[in-house]
């Protein structure tokens, strides 16, 4: 049975959840919209929040993360494993596109070798989704099979139905949470109808469309079409922002730091948009910009589908909104030649 909560009780709700979890909610405190530890009172994000600039992957794969420490003593080394951080988290307000991004990232971090840093945080985190009623012009989630107000990738899903939020229990973990949460009312048939209407309205507000039908095969056929990729990459300035702030990009670098006898190994976000990323001493397979742009596009729309049977893009639109030169992945994908060039 779905629940509901009065909007004016949201602060109360978050306060109650803060007793059991580190609650993250949309915040602009650091000057840029991101999920940050909730301060215990401010729910103004309910008015201004459309989506965060920094995607929620940052809570699981932080921009920079210590992997372990090591000590040096007369040329001998000892390794100190990372401390087990069992802190339970709750992310409040994640958008359906970003929740799907987490499901996409799980595939990589669970594949073959388990990534202990990412997965331990993932296991300890509840996702409470918030329907998106005001998508950006750059959003195209509906073209990737995502609805801005519906999600199977969260534990609880909230939809704005006027003076209340309609609450759906998506997972057993979500159900368990609502059972332990006081102040929720049972939703009735009218609320359900309201929610359905709100979802439909939101869905129709996403006006940008991308035809993804057959895109994998088109990209496969055009892989060696240098002229096309040169054109697609022409205005890119290789700043990397479209990858660093992409909710499904996960590339990282690993580096050491040693000061006197105390050291640590870190991992940090990296980007296939940088030529250093693949540079080897003797040669670099992606020295040229068009090869890097091709890598970015094909990894999302060709390689990831080949491996995991899902496009690694959620149509969140960040790479379009945040690009300093208005590079637009939907325009690139729309112009992929339908047929391979003759003579290939």
């Amino acid at each position, binding site marked *: 049975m779905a629940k509901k909560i009065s909007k004016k009780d949201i602060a109360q709700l978050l306060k109650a959840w803060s007793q059991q979890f580190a609650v993250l909610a949309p915040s602009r405190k650091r000057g840029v919209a991101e999920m940050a530890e909730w301060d215990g009172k401010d729910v103004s994000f309910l008015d201004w929040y459309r989506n965060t600039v920094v995607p929620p992957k940052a809570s699981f794969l932080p921009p920079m993360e210590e*992997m*372990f420490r*090591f000590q*040096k003593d007369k*040329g*001998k*080394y*000892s*390794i100190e*494993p*990372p401390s087990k951080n069992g802190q339970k988290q709750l992310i409040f307000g994640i958008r359906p596109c970003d929740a799907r991004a987490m499901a996409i990232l799980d595939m*990589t*971090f669970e*594949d*073959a*070798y*388990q*990534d*202990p*840093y990412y997965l331990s945080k993932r296991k300890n985190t509840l996702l409470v989704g918030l329907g998106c009623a005001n998508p950006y012009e750059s959003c195209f989630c509906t073209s990737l099979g995502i609805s801005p107000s519906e999600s199977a990738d969260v534990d609880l899903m909230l939809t704005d139905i006027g003076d209340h939020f309609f609450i759906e229990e998506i997972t057993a973990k979500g159900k368990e949470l609502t059972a332990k949460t006081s102040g929720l009312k049972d939703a009735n048939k009218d609320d359900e109808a309201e929610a359905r209407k709100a979802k439909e309205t939101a869905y129709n507000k996403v006006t940008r469309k991308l035809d993804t039908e057959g895109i994998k095969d088109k990209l496969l056929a055009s*892989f*060696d079409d240098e002229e096309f990729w040169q054109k697609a990459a022409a205005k890119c300035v290789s700043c990397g922002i479209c990858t660093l702030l992409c909710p499904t990009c*996960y*590339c*990282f*670098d*690993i*580096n*050491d*730091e*040693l000061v006197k006898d105390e*050291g640590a*190994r870190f*991992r940090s976000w*990296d980007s*296939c948009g940088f030529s250093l*990323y*693949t*540079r*080897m*001493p*003797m*040669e670099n*397979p*992606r020295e040229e910009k068009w*090869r890097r742009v091709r*890598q970015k596009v094909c*990894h999302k729309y*060709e*390689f990831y589908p*080949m*491996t995991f049977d899902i496009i690694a893009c959620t149509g969140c639109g960040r790479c379009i909104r945040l690009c300093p030169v208005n590079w637009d992945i939907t325009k690139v994908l729309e112009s992929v030649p339908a047929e391979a060039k003759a003579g290939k």
Partner: protein
Amino acid sequence: MTVSDISQRQKFFAQGNVYLPHIAVIEKIIEETPGVRTFHFNLKDQKLQKDFSFQSGQFAQYSVFGIGEAPFCISSSPTRRGHLEFAAQKVGKVTNALHRLGVGAEIGFRGPYGNSFPLDSLKGKNLVFVSGGIGLAPLRSLIWNVIDNRNKYKKIDIVYGARSPADLCFKYDLDAWDKDKTVNMVTTVDRGDDTWKGKVGLVPKVLEEVAPSAEEAVAIVCGPPIMIRFTFPALEKLGFKPEQMLTTLEKRMKCGIGKCGRCNIGNIYVCRDGPVFSYAQIKDFVSSEY
């Protein structure tokens, strides 16, 4: 890679975490060429050293603490287990730091990672090894493996080259294989010098002269990318099919386990799906991404 492969390897994780290195101790250093050294090493934990297992073709991540990590194949053969070996050319940050280390120094080691040469499908075949420069490192693990089980394989041809006589790596191996009457060892250099009495010529060209038969044969190729690019067509001329050619690729890697992204070409990760590939698997992108 199957799930059982992974669980097999899990027992070598330091404290259950795939990213944590074990401490290894350098036991011996061999100056192969002015820029290339072979490091003999053992894991500091003796029980682990005893239990540790790997296959020819697999690689590991080696670290100089405070400098960083770099991937190298395990260049010794699993059939010779007094110690483990890897070879590194002094070209970057980590390899320069490795070259500054002496015997007794401690390094980080995690692995083994990646797939390996398919020994089962090599059994009963004629084997043609084609290699250049430090590219012999992964192949010598397999060559010794094969020689130590000599009766399982038929003819063995080895064509190995380097830019100059001074750039030939693993000269002690070349001598041993040259003396081995069951092996046809051909060594060549791009440019000879006053003392060089062997062949002069690029590896793909010399390979065509040696002209090993493609019948019941598998070619195993590893060397600089430029050599690999010209060796495949040479083998095709000799009648080898793409499925009969194996190589082991090198890419920049950080994680070694298919996560960090940089060794991605097409839908494969060199670290996770390789480093050993058949030419049939990679020929579509060899021209454009390798």
